[in-house]
């Protein structure tokens, strides 16, 4: 359960990137990989809890999930796997490179025009 400290980091990043004249942030978009070890609902809940009573209160967190995409180093097969089982469905090899799915990034903020 480290979603609370992650939510605090997100608040810091939003504050740093909000132009001073624009306080009307509406939403923040966060990219969360399937293997980032983060529970999206819990992250959104923590974000709502720590922004309550602050200038960021009411800002919506939009979470974009990034699928786990892997490439087999043996046969070159690339595909999205439904869960982190590290066996190539094509050749059975276990030497897989993770291409995406570990993201934990703030990608954008939507603000009301001044």
């Amino acid at each position: 359960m480290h979603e609370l400290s992650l939510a605090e980091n997100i608040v810091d990043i939003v504050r740093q990137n909000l132009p001073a004249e624009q306080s009307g942030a509406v939403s923040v978009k966060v990219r969360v990989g399937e293997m980032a070890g983060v529970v999206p609902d819990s992250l959104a809940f923590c974000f709502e809890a720590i922004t309550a009573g602050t200038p960021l209160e009411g800002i919506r967190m939009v979470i974009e999930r990034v699928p786990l995409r892997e490439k087999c180093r043996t046969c070159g097969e690339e595909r999205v796997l439904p869960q982190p089982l590290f066996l190539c469905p094509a050749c059975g090899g276990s030497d897989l490179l993770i291409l995406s799915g570990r993201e934990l990034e703030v990608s954008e903020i939507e603000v009301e025009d001044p």
Partner: protein
Amino acid sequence: MSVITIERKVLEKNEAIARKNRDLFARHGVFVLNMVSSPGSGKTSILERTLHRLKDRVRIAVIEGDVQTDLDARRVAAYGVPAVQIITQGGCHLEASLVHDALANIDLASLDAVIIENVGNLVCPSNYDLGEAMKVVVASTTEGDDKPLKYPAMFRNSSVLIINKTDLVPYVNCSLPALQANALSINPGLTVFQTSCTTDAGIAEWCAWLLEQIRLASQGGASAAPIGIDE
């Protein structure tokens, strides 16, 4: 409405401090391990067996992470090595800043290695780079052989697996070959050791490997980035 594009990592602050820690370790030629596992797998016991064998051959300090108490730091300090306890007061993992603060109480210039024992937790610590050269994950036979499949990120992000409590295999529902195969299916690059802190089995092999890593780091072979299969 307008959109401000940011593209910043949520953990960028932690990663920046981890880089600072890593630079500091490299400058002093100090080899640093981050030991991770579920609670009760035997991290501290492995540390004790390791210090018993190596404390007169290399200069090791220990940073202990726990939710409460300094019990582990006291266990380790009994071997005559510098030990710093970090109490997270509920925090489920160590962060780079906590390790950075702990380094204020450690004289890196007089050391060959630092072993960080993370909070017992197979989930959260896998996300936090502390500045270590590598993560060592401990899995004990009493936890069963399916843990690598259930907690893949931790096994994926580690470079070494120590399978501990091998002496208990006859009494528990755990197959050593299955545990090892499951871990290697998640991360084929794992270096694997099998140990028992009760019988001392496998401890000599683990210590020989550790000594070699410490020797390489002292020669400037310490990696500038965390060693990971996907990097």
